[in-house]
């Protein structure tokens, strides 16, 4: 039963694809088609046994004892007492079908209902149900079933019903965790506010979402039920008069030195059935999740081909010869794409040019999906693994980092640093603040542990943390968002960088904290003459901090000028539209006339 329970560790919850579309998708998959076909054949093989079986399963013809396959009246040969293996297999299949159906019905009804109720209503009921499920889960299932033989005797259906109870916690946990996560969805709250009763909410919203995962899980439960039934029969705990897969396996196994081939048939049948069920379960699971299709990295060959096909959108570089001093950072004609199939990409950044001088704060503004964060992350070489840089160059002091991944690694953390958006999710929850800062510092500087601690405490003090020694030993979940962001800034400064890439560094913070962090960034920048790229959607932040601004729209920079000019006289239509959306100067609403509403 291990595969049943271990599948519970991470229940997936995506927008469900349901009904006919799902089945079309499953049958469209070659593995899905083959397994469904096999399972249909096996079911037919069992259900039709009384009509199709060539012989009585218990008829013994002594002359055919241990007969080989295909040579006699018994197509698959005879067993150790001269019975027809094929006919016995057919009747055994029938028995297995009934047995696993018992398991399925008992476990899904019991566990599913309990999970639904416990998950939706929570509270004491939930605690109690959860405890019972934990007790059941801690029971070694097969051992208990064997033990129960002393009480119930060779009654396989009753044993399977007990097994159904024993694995009902797997349904319980699955359904409960699904329901719990749905219960916190706002659409459930909206339905409550709209006045829907609990029964209606469960029927409309909850059942819909748990249906898919239950089907998937049932495939695994059926497979495990087959294994358990076969195991019990194999141990001789079933009814000896009924043919069963496990019993046939036992007979054949005990007789293996006399008739090897007889072992093959039950092994094949049990193996094929459980394999088909589990594979089918996996195919259905993939089909359910296909709506949220996971991007997978393209093969290197495809990436090479895509890069070769690129056509530059950049204008010829005119200013290159003019200045003899190299800028701190120059991004040239950078294009980035994400796979949308196994051979093609969807470009999200189309040929971006960007220059950052020493000691300059450069704002990269745009709305969601404009590609601004992609540009920022590519400067550090920390794009997600599936992202493809299609073309372009990222020159740091005139040296192209894209051309040399080793150089990129050397520069990262030492000369270019990163300040992320979400403070708390950017600290590893399993290490103290001090530990992870120390690892970072010692990765880029050759200092002893003690020196590292000293330097970091000074830095933490510098970024405005009041009691650095205490914060050093705290775990991330023990610090506030504002403090975590200061820790991350300290982490970025640890390697004494010349350039900082800050991706929406204040978006997740409260306004009052944001003001302090902006102040800190400005002071640090002046102190250390840092170059900075600030990615943001907030023109207030840009106005506060930036010397130059580049406005991005759908993967392109549409306007790039000094901050003062841009705000005073925006040239591009899109920039004007964005600036006009700002609510700073918005008209106040006329106060309501006294009593007008009454």
């Amino acid at each position, binding site marked *: 039963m291990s595969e049943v329970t271990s599948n519970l560790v991470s229940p997936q919850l995506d*927008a*469900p694809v*349901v009904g006919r579309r799902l089945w079309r998708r499953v049958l469209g998959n070659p593995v899905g088609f083959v397994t469904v076909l096999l399972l249909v054949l096996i079911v037919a093989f069992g259900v039709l046994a009384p009509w199709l079986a060539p012989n009585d399963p218990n008829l013994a013809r002594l002359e055919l004892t241990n007969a080989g396959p295909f040579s006699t009246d018994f197509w698959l040969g005879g067993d150790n007492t001269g019975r027809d293996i094929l006919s016995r297999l057919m009747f055994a299949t029938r028995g297995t079908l009934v047995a696993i159906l018992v398991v399925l019905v008992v476990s899904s009804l019991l566990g599913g209902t309990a999970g639904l109720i416990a998950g939706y209503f929570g509270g004491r009921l939930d605690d109690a149900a959860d405890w019972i499920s934990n007790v059941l889960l801690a029971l070694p299932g097969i051992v208990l079933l064997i033990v129960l033989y002393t009480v119930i005797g060779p009654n396989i259906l009753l044993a399977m019903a007990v097994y159904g109870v024993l694995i009902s916690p797997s349904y319980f946990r699955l359904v409960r965790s699904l329901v719990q996560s749905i219960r916190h*969805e*706002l*659409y459930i*709250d*909206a*339905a*409550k*506010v*709209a*006045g*829907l*009763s*609990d029964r*209606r909410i469960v029927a*409309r*919203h909850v059942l*819909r*979402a748990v249906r898919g995962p239950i089907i998937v899980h049932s495939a695994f439960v059926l497979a495990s039920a087959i294994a358990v039934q076969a195991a019990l029969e194999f141990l001789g705990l079933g009814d000896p008069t009924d043919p069963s897969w496990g019993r046939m396996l036992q007979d054949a196994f005990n007789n293996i030195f006399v008739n090897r081939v007889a072992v093959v048939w039950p092994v094949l049948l049990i193996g094929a059935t459980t394999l088909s069920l589990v594979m089918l379960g996996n195919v259905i699971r993939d089909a359910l999740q296909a709506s949220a299709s996971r991007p997978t990295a393209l093969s290197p060959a495809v990436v090479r081909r895509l890069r070769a096909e690129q056509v530059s959108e950049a204008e010829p570089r005119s200013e290159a010869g003019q200045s003899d001093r190299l800028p701190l950072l120059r991004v040239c004609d950078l294009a980035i794409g994400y796979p949308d199939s196994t051979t093609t990409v969807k470009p999200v950044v189309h040929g971006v040019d960007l220059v950052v001088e020493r000691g300059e704060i450069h704002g990269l503004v745009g*709305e*969601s999906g404009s590609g601004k964060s992609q540009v920022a992350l590519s400067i550090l070489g920390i794009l997600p693994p599936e992202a493809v840089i299609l073309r372009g160059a990222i020159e740091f002091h005139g040296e192209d980092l894209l051309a040399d991944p080793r150089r990129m690694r050397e520069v990262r953390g030492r000369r270019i640093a990163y300040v992320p958006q979400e403070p708390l999710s950017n600290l590893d929850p399993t290490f103290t603040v001090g530990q992870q800062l120390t690892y970072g510092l010692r990765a880029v500087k050759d200092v002893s542990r003690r020196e590292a601690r000293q330097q970091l405490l000074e830095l933490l003090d510098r970024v405005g943390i009041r009691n650095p020694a205490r914060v050093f030993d705290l775990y991330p979940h023990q610090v506030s*968002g504002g403090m975590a962001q200061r820790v991350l800034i300290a982490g970025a400064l640890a390697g004494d960088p010349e350039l900082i890439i800050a991706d929406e560094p204040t978006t997740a913070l*409260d*306004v*009052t904290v*944001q*003001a302090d962090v902006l*102040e800190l960034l400005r002071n640090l920048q002046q102190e250390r003459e840092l170059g900075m790229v600030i990615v943001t*959607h*907030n*023109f*207030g*932040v*840009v*106005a*506060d901090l930036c010397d130059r601004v580049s406005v991005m729209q759908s993967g392109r920079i549409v306007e790039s000028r000094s*901050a*003062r000019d841009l*705000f005073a006289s925006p040239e591009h239509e899109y920039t004007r*539209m*964005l*600036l*006009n*959306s*700002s*609510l*700073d100067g*918005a*008209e*106040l*609403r006329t*106060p*309501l006339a*006294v*009593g*007008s*509403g*009454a």
Partner: protein
Amino acid sequence: MNASAGGSASGTPLLSLQDVQVSYPTRGFRSPPLTVLDGISLDICEHETVGLVGESGSGKTTLGRALLGLAPVTGGRVVFGGRDISTLSRAERRRTAKDLQVVFQDPYSSLNPAMTIEDILTEPLLARGEKGGRDIVRRLLDQVHLPQDAGRRLAREFSGGQRQRIAIARALVLDPKLVVCDEPTSALDMSTQARILTLFKEIQETTGVAYLFITHDLAVVRAISHRIAVLLQGKIVELGSAAQVTGDPQHPYTQRLLMAAPVADPVAQRERRVERQRLLERQAERPSEVVDTPR
């Protein structure tokens, strides 16, 4: 502070919060309950938008949820349409559903991704046993400026701004008197935010619905509200007309909040920065006057 001190709340208010408290029991033996909101008094009239502004942990979302019956009111009264709705059972409350609706912050989680827009929009009607006709759906879609054929598509096919329009349409199905708007624009892009705010105002002018508009963004609340309440650590520290609260804030916290928000203009922002520094120094000199609690 008396609610009527803020100005326009004379006449019979549509909604009246009287000394509302929300607290949750905490786990553990004898540990005291966690009080999220305390002593909240606030009136909202018909046609009126009252903005509720506060930072994370101030309890602003909890206040909205308490109004809607999604968080427990452990003290005080919530008088809506002349009766106390804080003590009603779930079943009794369902009748107030017609008049009290909601638009949530997250347009992704607030619409069931697997349902069609038509199903989503007619859900409130279903609860009342009424049949949801295509006509109603079409009228609503029109009201929030979405194409007529949107009804048969799934929620997940729409962008954030469009989803928020759908959520607004759902709130309007039953012609409510009050809509609680819980950060309805903070997950949206700036340009989308501006358009959605305009939509909110437009709907208010045609239907006379009242809003409790909850947000962390002072600029947003200034643009949409008639009156503004400032929430700090579960208490209202300032309540007044939008012009007064954003033009001449009285409470030190409101002053800080106002000065903290950067302006989208480098010159004005430089001045504001200096002003903020001055304010912080002033407040630091006289800490006794600027305790962060209600006066």
